[in-house]
């Protein structure tokens, strides 16, 4: 499994297609923390929410990084397309987790607001939930499912838009509306808000696994 994950990370690096979205995210972090970004949790909401479409695209990049003949061989070597999907998800997630770590560290170091341990934990959870949600959404717009690049961009953008505008639509709406406020909501609200993004991602991955195994 580790070999396969590092194989996909190598493909991402060799194809260099992940560089623009990663640079874009780092630029976003730079802009958010260029001045006072506000209290810890609201500031983290923006950096966490931006991870969702980024990780969705990273997941697609992982899937398109190898042409179908080689992807088939990888699937056979791993023991099936579901395992290949899991490996791709792990590869995309590992990049997402790395970016989440940078975002959290950046905010703790640069943002002039208190960051108690419990708050840092919440912020880490918010970012990880969006990584999972993004990877899951990305799996639904990636090979072996036949979705063109344009349609994939539109689908991700549409989900981001709807989720930003409608407060109860996960993965972004509840996080924005429940967490981006002062005082910080109760631990249960935080848990539910973070949890639903992660559940959405996991469900999307399961659906992609189900549909992908019989796709062309």
């Amino acid at each position, binding site marked *: 499994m580790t*070999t*396969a994950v590092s194989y996909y990370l190598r493909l991402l690096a*060799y194809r260099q297609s992940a560089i623009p979205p990663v640079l874009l995210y780092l630029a976003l972090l730079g802009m958010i923390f260029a001045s006072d970004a506000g209290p810890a949790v609201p500031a983290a909401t923006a950096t966490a929410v931006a991870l969702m479409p980024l990780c969705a695209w990273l997941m697609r990049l992982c899937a398109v990084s190898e042409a179908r*003949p080689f992807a088939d*061989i*990888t699937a*056979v070597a791993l*023991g099936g*397309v579901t395992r290949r999907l899991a490996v791709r998800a792990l590869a995309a997630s590992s990049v997402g987790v790395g970016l989440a770590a940078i975002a959290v560290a950046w905010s703790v170091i640069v943002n002039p607001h208190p960051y108690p341990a419990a708050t840092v934990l919440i912020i880490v959870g918010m970012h990880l939930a969006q990584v999972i949600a993004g990877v899951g959404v990305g799996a639904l717009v990636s090979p072996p499912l036949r979705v063109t690049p344009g349609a994939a961009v539109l689908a991700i953008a549409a989900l981001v838009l709807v989720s930003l505008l409608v407060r109860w639509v996960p993965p972004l709406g509840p996080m924005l509306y429940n967490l981006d406020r002062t005082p910080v909501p109760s631990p249960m609200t935080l848990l539910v808000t973070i949890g639903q993004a992660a559940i959405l991602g996991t469900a999307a991955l399961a659906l992609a696994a189900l549909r992908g195994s*019989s796709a062309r």
Partner: protein
Amino acid sequence: MRRGSLRLDGVWHAYGNATPVLADVSVAIEPGEVLVVHGRNGAGKTLLRIAAGVLRPRAGTAKHNGRVGYLPQRSDDPPPRLSAAAWLSTVARTSGATATRDRLDLLRMLGVESAAAPLDTLSVGTLAKVMLAGAFGGAPDVVVLDEPFASLDSSAMKTTLELIGAAATDGAAVLISDHDGAAATVATRIATITDRRLDVQRAASRPARVRIVAADGKGSPIDVIVDAAARDPLLMQLLSNGGSIFRVEEVR
């Protein structure tokens, strides 16, 4: 000795809402058997992808026993900057067969001396040989080859036929899609896909083979598949050396 087998039961498949490309396909490939599929349409490719476990059929089941070595027909757009050795090593380690060395030996047998060149700089023929080495490496129990001779020179084609024969003799179940007819010499059965169904017949060119399960004079187990003509001399030799014969069965 490998013990690979492959079984498709009542397999149906269609892409989307289109007309099925496979309808009620059932076939079993036992250890030591080589099934060659003819037919110039997309159904053969679908059959092979289902057999290899890349595609799940809409209905029916596809089961294989043991590790699978798979060769797809096309080799376009290989991973960039990744050397043949690195790719073969990844395939070996990912599939759980950690020996990369045998794949490099196979590559040399097929006429490729160096595996250091990146895959995206290789010619179509050399890339086909690298992928063949990936499919046969690690002694897979089930070998699924989609038009293995398409891009090969005559020398590599001969070596590939030998590899197929050796794998079958060692007990692997082999499924080949072959439009050129080159695989007929190693086939134990030949199938054609007609009207979405698989019509399987015994290959005329291949002598019947038998599996012998026995023990030699020292009690060491023997499990071999040999041509029927070699059966009697082998059994006589076993008995004259004090061995025991447990089972002799025909391999279809």
